[in-house]
């Protein structure tokens, strides 16, 4: 039996992107919530709840990008020019928020500036990621081995909707994370935002889901004809089940359940995109196999990944374990 390396790699890249979205998602969400939870002490607490792990979270983005270059170089070299503006905006946003973690403790008079950078950078990066996702779902035009569309093709009502959806979704992840990791005022305020963003996320998931099948006949077929129609029942039902647990967790004042339910939202939406996309890497032009690098490249990196990825999950998990529990307001290395 021949091993389908391109298929395995598509799965691994999808895993890296999902890991990025749910991990950096909650710390970006904390950044977006930054100005809405008042008080210097509250903000120190919010920052310290993600400070030890944000860097590892963001590394999944580098794996997503670097991995795409390694195993799907053609997809990488058409997607990035096609999404030029949102990607540059995302990078600028990530710069501002990334340095804020250290800078705000070193600044005295200009601390507000880095607080603003943390918020603005998180918001911009999230919006850009959402818009980029929407633009990819819409499809990218290719001629030969290069992007052939216009420079503003990424900007459409649909991509703006997905941008907003991701912002609200990350707020949900961030606020449920804070419910889990903090106590007192920050927790109670975050809980309020969790309710608000949960309704928002559900509504936006609905809107995006209803719109998507009409972007592309392939998507419509996938969801509304043939054997794959089963997903049309399964995926939304699971979303509703997660919503049930999310609201119950919030109502009962549970710590972890709301966050885990919010993660389930993201995993389900991601699966939904996967169902629409397959077997395309770049819809509607490139399949997984057309975009893949030669097998020698795929197998060389796969050998190391089989060893290294479990190790990475192990020590990343250990790092989360070290910083388990509620954040102690007196902690931090500063």
């Amino acid at each position: 039996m021949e091993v389908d390396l391109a298929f395995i790699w598509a799965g691994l890249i999808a895993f890296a992107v999902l890991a990025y979205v749910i991990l950096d998602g909650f710390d970006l969400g904390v950044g977006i919530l930054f100005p809405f939870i008042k008080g210097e002490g509250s903000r120190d607490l919010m920052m310290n709840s993600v400070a030890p792990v944000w860097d590892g979270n963001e590394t999944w983005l580098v794996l997503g990008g670097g991995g795409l270059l390694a195993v799907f170089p053609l997809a990488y070299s058409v997607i990035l020019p096609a999404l030029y503006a949102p990607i540059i905006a995302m990078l600028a946003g990530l710069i501002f928020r990334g340095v804020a973690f250290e800078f705000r403790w070193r600044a005295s008079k200009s601390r507000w500036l880095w607080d603003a950078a943390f918020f603005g950078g998180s918001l911009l990066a999230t919006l850009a990621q959402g818009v980029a996702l929407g633009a990819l779902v819409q499809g990218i035009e290719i001629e030969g081995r290069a992007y052939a569309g216009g420079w503003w093709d990424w900007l459409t009502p649909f991509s703006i909707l997905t941008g907003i959806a991701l912002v609200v979704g990350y707020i949900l992840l961030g606020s449920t994370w804070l419910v889990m990791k903090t106590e007192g005022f920050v927790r109670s305020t975050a809980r309020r935002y969790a309710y608000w963003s949960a309704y928002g996320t559900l509504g936006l998931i609905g809107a995006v889901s209803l719109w998507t099948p009409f972007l592309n006949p392939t998507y419509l077929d996938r969801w509304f004809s043939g054997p794959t129609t089963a997903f049309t029942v399964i995926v939304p039902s699971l979303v509703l089940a997660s919503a049930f647990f999310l609201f119950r967790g919030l109502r009962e004042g549970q710590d972890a359940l709301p966050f885990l339910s919010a993660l389930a939202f993201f995993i389900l939406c991601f699966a939904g995109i996967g169902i629409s996309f397959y077997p395309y890497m770049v819809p509607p032009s490139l399949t997984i196999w057309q975009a893949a690098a030669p097998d020698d490249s795929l197998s060389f990196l796969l050998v190391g990944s089989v060893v290294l990825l479990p190790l990475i999950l192990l020590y990343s998990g250990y790092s989360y374990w070290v910083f388990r529990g509620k954040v102690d307001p007196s902690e931090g290395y500063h």
Partner: protein
Amino acid sequence: MDGLMDSLFDPVMLARIQFAFTISFHIIFPAFTIGLASYLAVLEGLWLWKKDSVFLDLFDFWKKVFAIVFGMGVVSGIVMSYEFGTNWSVFSDKAGPVIGPLMGYEVLSAFFLEAGFLGVMLFGKERVGPGLHFFATLMVAVGTLFSAFWILSVNSWMQTPAGYGMNDVGQFIPVDWWAVVFNPSFPYRLVHMVLAAYLTTAFAVGAVGAWHLLHDRDNRPALIMFSMAMWMAALVAPLQIVAGDLHGLNTLEHQPAKIAAMEGHYETRQGAPLILFGLPDDEAEVTRYAVEIPKLGSYILTHDWDGELKGLKSWPKEDRPPAALVFWSFRIMVGLGFAMVLIGFWSLIHRRWGGGLANARLLLRASVLMGPAGFVAILAGWITTEVGRQPFTIYGLLRTAESVSPLEAPALLGSLLLFFVVYTTVFGAGIYYVLKVMAKGPSRESEDEMQVPTRAAGIMPGAWQASKSHGHPGQG
């Protein structure tokens, strides 16, 4: 002025300027963190071994600098990992199958390791035991070195490609991974770069130590860091000269046009002189106002007084690197390298005959001045090697002009301006904060406590207060 206006509308030139600008900023951060991470591991190891709290104070101090620099390295590095796709998409498509997996290994073996243990190293002291904490510090240090390994493998492959074939859609494909990773220039480049990172850190650490010693010659933590830095300079700077020389011989073998530009030679000659200074003029194909030492150029590069050195005229004009930039950046790097050797030896003399380092005022002042030397040398060295391989991205195989994304100039100009504004403000502020932390110096809390006898602490309120008031720098 026409040249400048043309560049503003030339996508290739804009993409090159953007890459040069973003990577110049980026490269100084990892260069510093590679050295600092190893230094932190040494400090924590010394603390665990000798139980002298001064090493812990130094560790806590340099940890702060490390955290800021590392943060800037991470975010500027993310830009690099996407810039290949945004601005150099044709290159990415063609070279991705070969260099992509190497970068993939950098992420898997280095970035995750650094990031995963960084949190424990920075924030976990109260949560894990000293052994595990030391382990975390070691993993961060090892991660930075793994990162250097893979990224230099990538860069070296682009300079001296090996182990590849071509497929029918024009992509470079791997044929022999061993030959790809350990390509001809890789060992030299890796050693040269890692030593450069260590020297850069040594001179930055040395400058901070020297600065505080100049203000207080009894500052023990400052003396220790200055002394350690000077040992590094005395031992590693001469080694770097040797490594650089070997790297040069390797370049002569594989990239002779780069050597010709570095040396400012347009004519092929036997018994070529060493041009110390001059103004290479690519138009006239001559190095003006050359100050030369006869035959030394041939001797250094071929180890034969009458050896033949190829001049730039051996290649068609469109295949030559621009000579003046390469020539001058090379001289700046070498000049700083020799200055480092000098400082190292000078410190040895003071240790042996000069009555100790703390009183060597002139050496201390010189060391403060040399603080940025490593960064400047690395940038100069990088310009030498990267501009020297032009007009190719993959030496001899893929031209820079054929590597760029199918973008129009306004998009590239816009992103260039954006990066320019963001980088100068954000990283400018970061460098200011690093200097601020450096100026504050390490806490001498534990040392003061040691000077006050424990039982006196209760009955000598003055001394106790004095030691408490030092506090912890950057608290909160």
